């Protein structure tokens, strides 16, 4: 908090970075602001697994010294960031939210961590997450459940639970999450922040804990769409160390944020994504389309014919791949997983290889058919990120809940998982609050590699709304 009463951690990432570049604030003061919020509220939120304050102050002082010397500064110069605890940093803990890797210290760093560092940012904490990134709620038996800053009894969404909560609580300006079935977009929606899952292959996964080879994605959670654009411009692009990363050129995402949506056609599907949607969620989404239309977009009702296939195949792929990666531990030390984790993986061993191959073989043809059906009519899709009002931690606690709790917990990702199977860029931004005072997320999705269009629509929406700027009043514990 400054003498004027301004909490510097309330700045957006872009505003904070620009303030450092201009010399209006110091990197040390930004770090102090984030740590002050962390010290005040971490006991309630439980968003972190580790915090390295000493290294953080060393990095912040070095950033201020570099600026004082003059010379070029990166677009994230002097910013304290924190990431889901599955991004490898040489010599630092990377627990992956697990007991099994509680002491795992990698000897190399993820490409995205190196790119953020080259842009001037540094990481000061590892954030809480679902164990091995395998739930959509934010429960964690080993490191403690992460709590929603808007109401501590409610889920944060997962698996990037700490990423969503830490950004909302002003512990950090941005956090990397990962998204295999919605794990960036769900916590973005639940915590009232902005998060983008890029196109499959758009961002390097080198040095990032795998869950599902086919569906894992790396992306940021931030306060605003513009913040996401800046991070994406830094981390996107081919990486020789990740041969699955695309060799597509990376645009200047921020430069495309004009606020003008004239000529943009936005589809609102009437099928699948609104099935059994809660009334407040539907109302928020419909109100959002009016805002987008006010910026010049044309809203087009859509009927989608392929969603049954997409949902079915998506369920098979991620289950099999997750079970495969963890097979050795499932044989030798299954008790070291939480109940809801090993229970979720177990059915993956029963799915026949022919189903798995069918799901993967049809992925490309389905994507092309989906694109012809949808993107010949519209440029973007808008849907709810989560169909229901946000549930409580208790209502989704598989380990301690009655039979049927698993259906509630797994249902959280019904609207997000299809975009992982299709590989499309998809973003969640805040678009309102439900009757319990918990955020509602608007999901915007586009063509492959059309992150710029997704970000442009999200930014345009945020120019006329203030949901993204609201700050939770975190209850004391």
């Amino acid at each position, binding site marked *: 908090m400054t003498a004027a009463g301004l909490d510097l951690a309330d700045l957006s990432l872009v505003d904070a970075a620009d303030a450092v570049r201009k010399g209006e604030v110091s990197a040390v003061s930004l770090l102090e602001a984030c740590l002050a919020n962390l010290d005040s509220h971490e006991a309630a939120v439980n968003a972190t697994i580790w915090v390295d304050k000493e290294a953080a102050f060393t990095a912040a002082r070095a950033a201020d010294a570099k600026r004082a010397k003059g010379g070029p500064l990166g677009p994230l110069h002097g910013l304290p960031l924190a990431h889901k605890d599955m991004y490898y940093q040489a010599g630092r803990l990377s627990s992956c939210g697990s007991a099994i890797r509680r002491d795992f210290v990698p000897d190399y760093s993820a490409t995205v961590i190196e790119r953020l560092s080259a842009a001037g940012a540094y990481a000061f904490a590892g954030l809480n997450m679902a164990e091995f990134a395998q739930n959509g709620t934010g429960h964690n038996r080993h490191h403690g459940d992460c709590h929603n800053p808007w109401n501590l009894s409610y889920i944060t969404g997962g698996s990037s639970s700490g990423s969503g909560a830490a950004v909302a609580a002003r512990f950090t300006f941005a956090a990397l999450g990962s998204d295999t079935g919605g794990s960036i977009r769900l916590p973005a929606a639940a915590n009232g922040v902005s998060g983008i899952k890029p196109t499959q292959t758009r961002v390097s996964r080198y040095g990032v804990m795998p869950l599902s080879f086919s569906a894992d994605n790396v992306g940021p959670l931030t306060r605003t769409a513009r913040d996401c654009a800046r991070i994406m411009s830094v981390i996107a692009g081919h990486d020789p160390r990740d041969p699955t990363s*695309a060799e597509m050129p990376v645009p200047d995402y921020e430069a495309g944020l004009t606020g003008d949506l004239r000529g943009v056609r936005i589809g609102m599907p009437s099928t699948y994504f609104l099935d059994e949607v809660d009334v407040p969620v539907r109302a928020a989404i419909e109100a959002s389309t009016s805002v987008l239309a006010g910026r010049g977009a044309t809203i087009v009702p859509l009927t989608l014919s392929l969603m049954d296939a997409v949902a079915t195949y998506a369920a098979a792929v991620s289950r099999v791949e997750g079970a495969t990666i963890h097979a050795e531990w499932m044989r030798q030390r299954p008790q070291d997983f939480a109940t809801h984790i090993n229970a979720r993986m*177990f059915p993956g061993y029963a799915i026949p290889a022919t189903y798995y191959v069918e799901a993967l073989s*049809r992925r490309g*043809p389905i*994507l092309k058919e989906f694109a012809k059906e949808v993107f010949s009519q519209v440029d973007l899709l808008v849907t709810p990120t989560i169909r229901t009002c946000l549930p409580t931690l208790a209502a989704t606690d598989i380990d301690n809940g009655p039979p049927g709790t698993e259906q509630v917990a797994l249902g959280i990702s019904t609207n997000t998982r299809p975009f992982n199977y299709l*590989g499309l860029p998809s973003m969640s931004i805040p678009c309102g609050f439900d009757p319990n005072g918990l955020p509602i997320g608007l999901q915007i999705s586009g063509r492959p590699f059309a992150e710029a269009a997704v970000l442009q629509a999200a930014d345009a929406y945020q120019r006329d709304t203030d949901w993204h700027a609201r700050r939770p009043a975190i209850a004391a514990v």
Partner: protein
Amino acid sequence: MSEKTKFVNHMVASISTWHGVQPPNEVALRMLGDLEKLIRDFEALRGTMRFEDEPASFEAALVEAASIGVRA
């Protein structure tokens, strides 16, 4: 013994045989039973699509689909 129990027992035996993994808890058995829905969903898709004859990759499909519907 119910049909569901028979299904679960059969799957448990299959998993043990093929993978050497044992059911870790009751929740796992419940979720294993839910695979009946996945089987029905796959059954419903039978005959709706064909495999591509030529070599293909999802990465290539992403690039191809990127330009579908793009207006000049």
